[in-house]
């Protein structure tokens, strides 16, 4: 906080240096938003292909269309603060999604689950991870007084919150078929 000039109001953390420092830190977090959302979308794409039951497939296809839109919105967040989205983080997210798929297979093998159920369980966790990343971006927008960030994140978090309930529900519904009856779906 600077010593004020005469009759000029004192700026509290609004001077150019402090503002740029805060925006640099927001940019770093937005890369995390990109990474987690790309990872979720990749895992979701691969899981949709594995599911045969038409209703579940339809639920996840709808979620995938939203996920693609959310990925674009994650990139739009950078533009709000005058920065460019990261291509590296998007690629890293794709790889992370594949990694989660592999991890799901390992857990399924150890836990005796059959079919794509473990992928659903991983999707549930991955969506929570990316939803949290968007929610943090929203709080950073509020902390810096930037309503344009909220304009983007609010609808994303609403949709991902609904997806969270849906993924929890279908993972819990289908666990008995996968673990007790060893059947795909």
């Amino acid at each position, binding site marked *: *906080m*600077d*010593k*004020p000039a005469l*009759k000029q*109001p*004192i*700026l*509290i*953390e*609004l001077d150019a240096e402090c503002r740029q420092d805060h925006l640099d830190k927001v940019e770093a977090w937005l890369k995390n938003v990109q990474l987690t959302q790309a990872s979720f979308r990749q895992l979701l794409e691969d899981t949709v292909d594995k599911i045969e039951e038409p209703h579940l497939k339809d639920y996840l296809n709808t979620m995938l269309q939203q996920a693609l839109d959310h990925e674009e919105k994650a990139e739009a967040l950078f533009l709000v603060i005058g920065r460019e989205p990261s291509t590296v983080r998007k690629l890293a997210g794709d790889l992370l999604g594949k990694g989660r798929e592999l991890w799901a297979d390992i857990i399924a093998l150890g836990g005796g689950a059959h079919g794509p159920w473990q992928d659903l369980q991983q999707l549930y966790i991955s969506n929570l991870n990316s939803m949290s990343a968007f929610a943090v971006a929203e*709080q*950073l927008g*509020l*902390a*810096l*007084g*930037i*309503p344009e960030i*909220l304009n983007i994140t609010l609808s994303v978090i609403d949709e991902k919150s609904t997806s969270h309930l849906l993924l929890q529900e279908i993972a819990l519904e289908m666990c008995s078929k996968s673990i007790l009856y060893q059947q795909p779906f």
Partner: protein
Amino acid sequence: MVVPEGYEVEAIMVGLSFPTDVAVADDGTVFVSEGGSSWPTRPYMPARVIALHPNGEVEAITMNVHAGPRGITWHNGELYMIFKGGYHMQLAKYNLETGKLTILIDKVPSGGWHEPGGPIFGPDGLMYFGHGSVSQQGVSLPAGFTVDLAKHPLAHDVPGQDITLTGNNVWSRDPRKPYPYLTLTGPFKPFGTRSEKGEVIKGQLWCNSAVWRCRPDGTDVELLAWGIRNPFGMAINEQGELYVSDNDFEEKGERAVALDPDRIWHIKNASKPFGSVTTPDWYGFPDICGDGLPVNHEKHLPLKGKATELFIQDPPPWAGPAAFLEQPHSCMCRMDFSRSDFFGHRGELFVAEWGTLAPLNSPREEDLDHGFRVIRVNVKEGTSELFMHNRIMGPASAHGGGGIERPVSCRFSSDGKSLYVLDFGVAHITEGSMFGFAHTGVLWKITKKEMSHG
């Protein structure tokens, strides 16, 4: 922005984050408290007090507390602060020279919706403070975005006198559970705990929805009044009379009340000798509106939410009527009496009106622009006049351009010649959400222009 002819306004500080109160030292140092986790609770911004010294130097008094300071005042060379956060409100004093923070009181049950009031000092040298109810509507219920139930599941209201309950309980969903089925909650109970007809709840010195006084070191605490929903604003006039602001019930949810006026109460027990108050006065919460009508009166039936039932059987005498009634949801906050003939309106009470939370807390179109201004109140006549407002009523951000958003406090300088008005900043409200934007708060200074004799 509009102020009466003869006054000028200047911005002193801009970019404040969720400021809650302003205080002025004898040497002219101006203090502004920033509330940390405030309204709504997220995002947390650093809880601190910013001090602007007369030489223009600025320093930040930082603290590691989760919620943060809600009220500050300068007295005898020390800064007194009142904190919200956790299950107890805390009252403390801070020495600027040594940096020592001393907790004076840590016993008032808090952890819910409403706020601490004060601290202020009277001409008697005593310290006056208050705390609002834990519950928003007289019973602990889910309130969504402030996640009170997750932080403080055991928090509840505590009465200032022995009371007998009617046995009325309120149904609501339990958002803490994976299966959010309905649960019953009674008044003066933690969420999910029902009350019984004829059950007696013992009154406590350390209650809430209450106002107290004590010595400056926090000893010899005396309960003056309870049943005040949110005594956030407190002020004492030159005659030593204590007045507190209080906010109306909300017209939403499981115990909704319509058209309850905001009010200013005269705390008559404060005029009695220190230590002589044997029975605190009761000002109506949770069963009586600001106009003296019961919350279940047909005038107060809600358009949005479920209508109320009474909680207290054979209640204590009501200490009203109010000294002043204001439009519902104006959200009167901190306030101060003019003590200066130079500034003018000596003896009148200047009140910051934070402004409505409609359409979140009221479905009524007419509530949308209530508040967002500073008024001056004649507490003897029960009348008011506008003092500071935007050209178009409502927050400046609603109409574009500059101006005031949500005045949260006003305090006269130590010589009484200037009025500081603290603007909380931008809060965006919808029917189902509330978002506060940090770095949008402003400290304004209003000064009477000197007359030219040239």
